[in-house]
């Protein structure tokens, strides 16, 4: 059996090898990320069937928890790890030709670091370790946002940095408080000692966690950095930030709320938070004329939907939320990747500049359309089963208030549909492009796009491939006792 720690080690070591290789082997540097992420993908997929049956616990320091740091590779972790390595792999293929200007090696190194952080967060069983990986993720994403050195990127990165660091400080305070209370950093151990959240001492850490992780996971009103950062970064980075980074925040949030605190009494609040995030995100996206900013706001909206689904708090609801996470990871990275070359060819991020692209870049345009359809939740694309599950889970609660919430969520979806359809119309049915500069994207960009499209359609038609892992992931989140037992075995 492959040791799951390789999932973290491989990208981490590769990230540090890349700058060294920069001295002689510049040409092949860019092939390392696809290789590493491909390796990660294979490892994750090969681990998945085993993990669904029994989670794998790896002791890092050689001694068992609660004293040593451990990795807890459960279904949830492996689901996230699969999606991270999949999206990471696809985006790195895309980057082969796309990233040309600027510090190429640094880009690749930072990219791998970001994915290291993300993988580490989802696999670790130790709260401080989670924080460390979280910081790796954050710092590398600050750097990636600003790495081109352009005006917009630098500005966004600085703003992102201030807000993100404030958020991580809050998390650190919460960790300190929890450590002071329980004297342990292992999540399972911590969870086993928390009986209820009603005491004030537990309340503060929880609030600090929500706020701190809310910044990275872009919950309203903590998401002010997101539209700036996602829109000014290069498209590959936007794809990875939107597809992976913010979801990792959600993962951390869910771990804390469900596993450590078992705080089921704040779920309704979480739902409300998700709803507000969704509505604000969709409304803000509605009147955007900058395509990447629009996609960024749409990410906020989708995060709201995921948080909303998590807030339903039932097995089915959380499965739906995780499904929506997968949907969004695939669809939004597809959208960012397709717009990447469209913007590159058009020379502007304005939606009006993309008019008539349907003729010049037919495959890219079709892929964009499919991504948008999927995000809106139209069958037969992947967005439909996830929306299906969320709606079902909310209605299964049989409560009037929940139906009102659901109606608002679906209203948000309608707005989302409106602006995506506007872009689709612009691409296909507006304007004529006379200039010959716009041509179809290169093969290295089309292959990842086609892989994503096939995945989106395939899973959309046959969602069963995901249901087993989703169900056991949701069970892992809901079953605290099981988690504690497994981790402290």
């Amino acid at each position: 059996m492959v040791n799951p720690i390789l999932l973290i080690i491989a990208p981490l070591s590769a990230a540090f090898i890349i700058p060294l290789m920069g001295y002689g082997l510049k040409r092949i540097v860019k092939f390392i990320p696809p290789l590493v992420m491909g390796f990660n993908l294979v490892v994750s997929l090969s681990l998945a069937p085993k993990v669904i049956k029994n989670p794998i616990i790896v002791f890092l320091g050689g001694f068992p928890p609660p004293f040593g740091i451990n990795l807890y590779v459960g279904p949830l972790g492996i689901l996230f790890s699969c999606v991270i390595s999949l999206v990471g792999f696809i985006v790195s293929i895309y980057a082969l030709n796309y990233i040309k200007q600027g510090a190429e090696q640094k880009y690749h190194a930072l990219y791998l670091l970001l994915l290291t952080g993300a993988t580490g967060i989802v696999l670790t069983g130790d709260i401080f370790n989670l924080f460390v990986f979280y910081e790796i993720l954050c710092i590398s994403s600050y750097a990636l946002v600003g790495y081109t050195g352009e005006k917009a990127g630098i500005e966004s990165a600085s703003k992102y940095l201030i807000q993100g660091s404030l958020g991580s400080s809050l998390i650190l305070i919460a960790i300190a408080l929890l450590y002071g209370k329980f004297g342990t950093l292992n999540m399972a151990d911590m969870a086993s000692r928390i009986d209820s959240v009603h005491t004030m001492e537990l309340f503060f850490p929880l609030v600090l966690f929500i706020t701190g992780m809310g910044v990275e996971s872009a919950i309203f009103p903590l998401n002010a950095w997101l539209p700036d950062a996602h829109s000014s970064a290069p498209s590959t980075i936007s794809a990875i930030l939107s597809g992976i980074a913010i979801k990792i925040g959600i993962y951390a949030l869910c771990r804390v709320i469900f596993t450590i605190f078992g705080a089921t009494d704040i779920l309704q609040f979480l739902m409300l938070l998700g709803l507000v995030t969704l509505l604000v995100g969709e409304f803000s996206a509605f009147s955007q004329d900058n395509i990447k900013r629009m996609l960024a706001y749409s990410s906020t909206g989708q995060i709201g939907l995921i948080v909303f689904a998590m807030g339903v708090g039932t097995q089915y609801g959380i499965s739906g939320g995780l499904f929506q996470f997968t949907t969004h990871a695939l669809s939004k990275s597809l959208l960012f990747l397709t717009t990447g070359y469209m913007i590159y060819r058009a020379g502007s991020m304005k939606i009006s500049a993309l008019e008539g692209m349907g003729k010049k870049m037919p495959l890219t345009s079709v892929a964009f359309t499919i991504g948008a359809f999927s995000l809106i939740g139209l069958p037969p694309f992947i967005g439909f089963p996830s929306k299906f599950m969320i709606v079902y889970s909310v209605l299964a609660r049989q409560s009037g208030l929940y139906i009102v919430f659901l109606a608002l969520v679906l209203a948000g979806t309608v707005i989302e549909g409106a602006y995506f359809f506007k872009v689709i119309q612009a691409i296909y049915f507006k304007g004529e492009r006379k200039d010959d500069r716009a041509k179809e994207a290169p093969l290295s960009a089309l292959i990842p796009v086609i892989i994503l499209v096939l995945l989106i359609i395939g899973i959309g038609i046959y969602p069963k491939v995901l249901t087993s892992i989703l169900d056991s992931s949701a069970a892992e989140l809901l079953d605290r006792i099981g988690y504690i037992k497994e981790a402290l075995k």
Partner: protein
Amino acid sequence: MDFLNNYIFYIGAFGLIFIGLYILLTRKNLIKLIIGLSIVDTGVNLLIICMGYLKNGTAPIFSRKGLNPETMVDPTPQALVLTSIVIGVAVLAMALSLAIRLYQHYGTLDMRKIKEQKW
């Protein structure tokens, strides 16, 4: 006095955190904001350290005879704080380098004037 003895570190830690927050909320210059962030970080580090602090404690070395395990200081927070300081430094370096580039672009560090990315 006893109160002060027991809680002086907490007061100090949270005091630093609030000072940092105050700076973040009121100052507009990016450098000052970074300083504020750094102060918050210091406060948090102090908080972590004082979680394991014992008055009149001893080093946590079991192999040396004569040291009572009861009075040993918890070593974990110290390990944590080391990590945290390193992270803090990394963030600080990142922030400062971004500030330099920002100044090159805008000729100012007043965040009220750097508002190109909005809406």
